[in-house]
């Protein structure tokens, strides 16, 4: 048996991303539906086999609809602490050389404070007949381990000494580690970027068990509401975008079915209602501001350091975030939207709290008992339609300065009435 025979481990996460997203969010597509979406039957068979193998049985399930099998994820808030989707990032393929170098080098450096590459080479076990460590392949592996943060080096003249990276938890008490573990259980679910914290929690868990002999129970503490786990499927893309934001690099961005563009990243927007993530940027290839959905991006690579003129373009774009409801209205001026809210102040006091908590600091004025006027200046009032509709008969759009928000909502309600009356 050889590692290369594995059909489950993969080189590129992109292989499973879209199919897994559709299985998790929709869970209603059969093999034929995926073929209609442009995914070959063979690819679907391979990837669904992998996805099923990565996830626990209780989470990913099969059912039969109209004689066709479909995969879906069984979600329950009581099990939400686990964040199973992040775990799919733990299936990257590896070679025998990868695994042997990773463990042997760190084991050797755990025994001795510092070692040179020739000393490590000398000490490495050499019983495997196909994986033979040489000066060259060891140097590559040492460089990789340095880059990945597991070991470090220092130079003395022309000699390079390698040592283990510091144990960052060394002076933490056991109780502090338990607190950190609890905190990570929380952050790996709540942060818009989840996978790095998922990795950290898993590794801290291992550290506590192995280095401290601490008992680690699996007792559930949290249940998360309104958690869009599927965002973790794009965390590798998001991380590259965040690196571009921090370093001030322009990015080469490849999207599904679109030309490669060069973008100056301004900020990432995470919408907590629908769990969509966007990059707000300046598209330098087409010379325009743009909002790009992170889940439509297939690859991100840094291109070049932005010069001061390019950085000032991005700086000038930052006010947009405060002026839009979420991401709509890049090229628009702000418009005033006025809504009248009517409700029973005694029995439905929560309505006023909802407006205060959810209304983006719009101005609220009491007109009379049970009647409030809400005003907000926003780039695209139409983007607020789902929120306004969520109040049902308690919210009435009065005006939206040249936008048809009122008419759109009126027509929506008419359509809804027709739907119910035709049942």
């Amino acid at each position: 048996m050889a590692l290369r025979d594995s059909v489950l481990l993969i080189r590129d996460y992109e292989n499973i991303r879209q199919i897994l997203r559709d299985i998790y969010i929709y869970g209603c597509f059969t093999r034929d539906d995926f073929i209609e979406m442009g995914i070959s039957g063979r690819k679907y068979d391979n990837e669904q086999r992998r996805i099923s193998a990565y996830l626990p049985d209780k989470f990913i399930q099969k059912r039969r609809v109209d004689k066709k099998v479909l995969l879906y994820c069984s979600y329950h808030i009581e099990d939400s602490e686990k964040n199973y989707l992040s775990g799919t990032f733990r299936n990257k393929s590896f070679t025998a050389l990868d695994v042997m170098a990773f463990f042997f080098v760190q084991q050797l450096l755990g025994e001795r404070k510092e070692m040179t590459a020739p000393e490590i080479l000398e000490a490495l076990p050499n019983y495997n007949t196909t994986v033979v460590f040489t000066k060259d392949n060891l140097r590559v592996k040492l460089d990789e381990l340095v880059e990945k943060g597991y070991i470090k080096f220092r130079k003395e003249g022309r000699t390079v000494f390698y040592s283990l990276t510091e144990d960052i938890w060394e002076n933490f008490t056991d109780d502090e580690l338990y607190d950190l573990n609890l905190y990570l259980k929380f952050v790996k679910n709540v942060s818009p970027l989840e996978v790095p914290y998922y990795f950290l929690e898993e590794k801290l868990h291992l550290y506590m068990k192995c280095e401290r002999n601490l008992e680690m129970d699996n007792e559930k503490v949290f249940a998360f509401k309104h958690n869009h786990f599927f965002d973790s499927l794009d965390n590798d893309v998001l991380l590259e975008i965040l690196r571009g934001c921090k370093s001030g690099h322009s990015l080469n961005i490849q999207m599904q079915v679109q030309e490669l563009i060069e973008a100056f990243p301004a900020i990432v927007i995470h919408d907590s209602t629908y769990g969509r993530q966007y990059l707000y940027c300046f598209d330098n290839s087409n010379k325009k501001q743009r909002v790009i959905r992170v889940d439509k991006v297939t690859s991100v690579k840094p291109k070049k350091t932005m010069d001061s003129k390019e950085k000032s373009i991005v700086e000038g774009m930052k006010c947009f975030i405060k002026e839009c409801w979420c991401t709509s209205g890049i090229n628009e001026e702000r418009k005033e939207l006025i809504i009248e809210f009517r409700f029973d102040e005694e029995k439905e006091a929560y309505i006023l709290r909802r407006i205060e908590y959810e209304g983006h600091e719009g101005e609220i004025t009491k007109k009379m008992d049970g009647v409030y006027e809400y005003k907000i200046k926003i780039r695209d009032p139409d983007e607020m339609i789902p929120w306004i509709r969520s109040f049902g008969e308690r919210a009435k759009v009065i005006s939206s300065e040249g936008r048809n928000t009122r008419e759109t909502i009126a027509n929506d309600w008419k359509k809804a009435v027709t739907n119910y009356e035709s049942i």
Partner: protein
Amino acid sequence: MNLFDETENKYFEFISYLLQNNRKYSKGEVNLLIEQLLTGEADFDVTDAIFSTKEGEELVFKYSDGQYESAIATDFPIRMGIIEQQAAKSLLENEYITHFLSEETIEKLRTNTESIPVDWSTKDIQVKNLFSSGATENGKNFGSIISLIAKAIKERKAIIYDNVREGMFEYRNVSVFPVEIEFSIMNDRFRICAFESSQNRFLKMNLDTMENIKLSSEVYEEDLEEMYQTFLKSNTRIVKLDIEPVDHVIERCFRIFSYYDRKARYDKQDNKYRLEISYLKFDETEIIKDILSLGGYATVIEPKHLQKEIYRRVLAASKLYED
């Protein structure tokens, strides 16, 4: 470093665990640990390669006398990779940190991660449509409270607290057994789900209004978790929705209900999506709000009482615009 990296592979973690205390393992023990510790289905091509028994093919374990042992007779040191180190450092910029860690622990984390080069920051993510006045905004610091409640959950101990909201309710010195801490990401609020044994009922409270929380020594002997699951099961309801196949609506609808247990089907003949959502009775107001947000594109098919309620409300909403 890419996020999708082999050193984060689950088999690397598994091997790290086995390479401790100079332990030897029989084949049976290895198979048992594979079953217990690895998430998902084991990949036998991988496990057979890692635990090869053939001379010249062994990787990090040597096999002799029916036992696997580490090829290098020393414990594997557990170190954080760069992504994990950076994640540890970035915890310092997370707004919830003071709800979980003491000042002393925060300071230790700051000192120990000072030299870690960080090339990303979650501060470059702007979260939109988060409710205001929540845990990140209201200035309230839960300090060690969350850790205390977690301890109570694990040890099945009671907590004693006051819960006062002026003009609305006042409870003093109440004792309950917490079963979980619920956190709503959109509402940005912690709520405590607990069992009140004196009233034989489960209840849910906003942590915001709870004060003077103390750990009690009283232990609940029965299986609270099982009781809670039974309680949840008996309070679970199902709503069936028909959704029109308009791309942006379908996407919004499925995303908004993605944190409920649900079953969906696409009916090609009728060109409709049918979504069955399981929800807790106490969340019905929220379900109604979400259904209304979809306007005329989502129609409640069952249950009838919810269908009638939504119809009543859309009819009333429609009348608002008749003038």
